[in-house]
């Protein structure tokens, strides 16, 4: 089979699988899967930029997605005016203190030659800065969190349209990526992995514990939506007529239409990003990236700034993950910090990229669709399989009960097996990167 036919064929198979779900289970479910597939595709695109173009191993996708979620809250929620007037100033002052401290340390380390005096001075500045920050921050936070904690107890957001947060989420993720990249790039490749794993855990910890910003584990619910609410649609007589014309119940039809609207938005973002990535990959810049990935030393000898390019691609890829994170929170309509789990938000995305074909943007999209589909459908299939295996045992048998209960965990094992088998037997993935010869 020629390579050019492979892509369309695989996508057609994927589409028909989703159609089968639509016909046999429900269109609602099929569309829910599609929406998450689209978001996962964007995350996979981001990871693919880092791994596929440049060979950077970033296992902090979860953190960047969480930053996108925080952006959605900070942009879209209406401001809590009382809290802002009570503690907004203090938070801003403490932020200024952080910036001033960082600036002072930067200046000291830039201007003074390395010496014991410099180290002591740095330590002193850190200590003073820390106390300054705490003295503004703590009372402000107490005041903010005291205001109606059951309903708000946080600063709220800017009250802008939520789609603005998709861009802001990308920018915030890029900022964090810049800091991590500055530290960990240029060291051994494993160190980037460990550093990103750590920072992603910490970002989620911050989202869980800084109640003044994200309400912590109390969650932020009722985020504004870019699409109409189902109930509003159901109340609209024109819509009801439309549903009748299709011969579907109004409630089901409204939820399908809303999901389709989301899918349209996500697809637009995906196509824009895909177009940009393809353009970048096929440009001289993309060629340079591949050269660096394939042989860092040779590329450096040719005068390419390897660490600089790595930093650039690391920031770009993380920004794409941040965009996807903001979109995910938009789709959920709520921000729940405790739902961020590295297996689901980092390593699953990695499986998608590797299965799809690292270095190939279309491969990442395909991988995201395939793996998300399998991830969702593995649960009923696993349950069914366990039911068949244990059908010899009578009802209420302890082993049978245990196996049925734990069937859900088998999808972890399955993902691990898929990853290992793919790496071993088809390391180039479903849609391999084009081999370019000249």
């Amino acid at each position, binding site marked *: 089979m020629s390579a050019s036919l492979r892509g369309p064929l695989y996508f057609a198979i994927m589409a028909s699988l989703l159609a089968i779900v639509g016909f046999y289970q429900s269109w609602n479910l099929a569309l829910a899967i599609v929406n998450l597939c689209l978001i996962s595709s964007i995350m996979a695109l981001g990871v693919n930029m880092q791994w596929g173009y440049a*060979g950077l*191993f970033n*296992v902090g996708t979860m953190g960047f997605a969480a930053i996108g979620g925080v952006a959605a809250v900070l942009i879209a929620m209406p401001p809590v005016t009382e809290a802002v007037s009570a503690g907004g100033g203090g938070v801003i002052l403490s932020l200024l203190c952080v910036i001033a401290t960082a600036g002072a340390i930067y200046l000291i380390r830039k201007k003074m030659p390395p010496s014991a005096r410099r180290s002591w001075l740095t330590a002193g500045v850190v200590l003073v800065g*820390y106390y300054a920050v705490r003295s503004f921050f*703590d009372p402000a936070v107490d005041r903010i969190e005291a205001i109606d904690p059951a309903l708000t107890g946080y600063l709220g957001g800017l009250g802008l349209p939520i789609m603005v947060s998709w861009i802001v989420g990308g920018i915030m993720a890029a900022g964090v990526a810049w800091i991590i990249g500055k*530290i*960990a790039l240029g*060291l*051994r*490749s*494993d*160190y980037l*992995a*460990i*550093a990103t*794993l*750590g*920072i992603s*855990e*910490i970002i989620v*910890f911050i989202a*869980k*514990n800084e109640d003044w910003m994200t309400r912590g584990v109390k969650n932020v619910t009722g985020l504004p939506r870019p699409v109409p609410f189902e109930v509003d649609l159901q109340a609209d007589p024109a819509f009801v007529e439309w549903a009748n014309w299709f011969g579907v119940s109004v409630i089901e039809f409204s939820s399908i239409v809303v999901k389709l609207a989301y899918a349209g938005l996500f697809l637009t973002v995906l196509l824009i990003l895909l177009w940009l990535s393809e353009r970048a990959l096929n440009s001289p810049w993309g060629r340079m990236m591949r050269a660096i990935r394939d042989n860092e030393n040779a590329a450096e000898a040719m005068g390419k700034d390897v660490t600089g390019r790595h930093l650039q691609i690391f920031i770009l890829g993380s920004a794409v993950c941040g965009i996807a994170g903001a979109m995910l929170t938009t789709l959920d309509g709520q921000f729940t910090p405790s739902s961020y789990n*590295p*297996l689901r938000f980092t*390593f699953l995305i*990695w499986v998608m990229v*590797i299965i799809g074909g690292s270095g190939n943007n279309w491969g990442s999209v395909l991988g995201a669709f395939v793996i998300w589909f399998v991830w969702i459908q593995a649960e009923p299939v696993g349950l069914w399989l366990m039911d068949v295996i244990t059908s010899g045992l009578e009802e209420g048998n302890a082993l049978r009960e245990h196996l049925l*209960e*734990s069937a859900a*965990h*088998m*999808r*972890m*094992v*399955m*993902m*691990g*097996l898929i*990853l*290992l088998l793919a*790496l*071993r037997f088809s390391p180039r993935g479903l849609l391999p990167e084009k081999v370019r010869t000249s």
Partner: protein
Amino acid sequence: MTDILNAIVVFANFVLVPGASYGAQLALGALGITLVYGVLRFSNFAHGDTMAFGAMGTILATWWLQSMGVSLGPIPTALLALPAGIAFAAALLLLTDRYVYKFYRAQRSKPVIFVIVSVGVMFITNGLVRFIIGVDDQRFNDGARFIIRARDFKEMTGLKEGLAIKASAGITLLVAAIAVIALFWFLQKTRTGKAMRAYSDNEDLALLSGVNPDRVVMVCWLLVAVLATVAGTLYGLDKSFKPFTYFQLLLPMFAAAIVGGIGNPVGAILGGFVIAFSEVTITYAYKRVLGHLGMETDTLVQLLGTEYKFAVSFVILVVVLLIRPTGLLRGKTI
């Protein structure tokens, strides 16, 4: 004078004792990571879940022993069940090595490929643990709870503050010390241990000198199985066994290994204690200690909330990466 003693006792009770036992657990975990790094040359992301797997084996064996009516009195039955847990973990590690890592070793793949492969192994191990024992908390400590109770200590010394030492803390330190001494004896004195160090130091030279690489790798995995199971079981005895917490231990353990100098066993132990004591001292509220010293404060005098203890290990990791990427003791050989 008694004020100072009271302050010291509070400090020991909430910082020194918990820090020491947590440090010993981290050190054992970091030793496993550092051994894999030294001999097989990659960062093993599956190590946390290997610990969970070994601890799970121990728990299952403990339950079996308990059902047979075996008990060690004040000492937890789990210590008797350790060999079974080690056998579990060793079987898992040797199987994954045979069917997963060996292929990439033969190909001489880049370290980052090994890391990704270890992520796959992590998925499978994690899934197996959840599948076999479930995701809930498992308490399996059936031994005595305390070596010294806070009340007894107060009566003994007449001080206002009590010092409680949990039995699990004492057992942790004792077992960890035995394991570390045995490991160092093995690495320094036995022929196989010397071969391992030679292989880690310079693979080609070791091969020329007739070191059998397959044997070195196998022994390395066996040692890792012992260390991971002991670390996982001690952590489970001290806190409680929950599969997900072992994944979260990965970051402090990596931090410990890197801070001490990755590939260097002495460094891993040093790093474990550095990380553990930093976490505990930075997240401890010093209000009571200062109160005894005559410095009454309104605030808790806590540098960082306890929920951020993982951030501490990360910050230390970052500082070490920035200032001294090779770690406190020069790393990369065992």
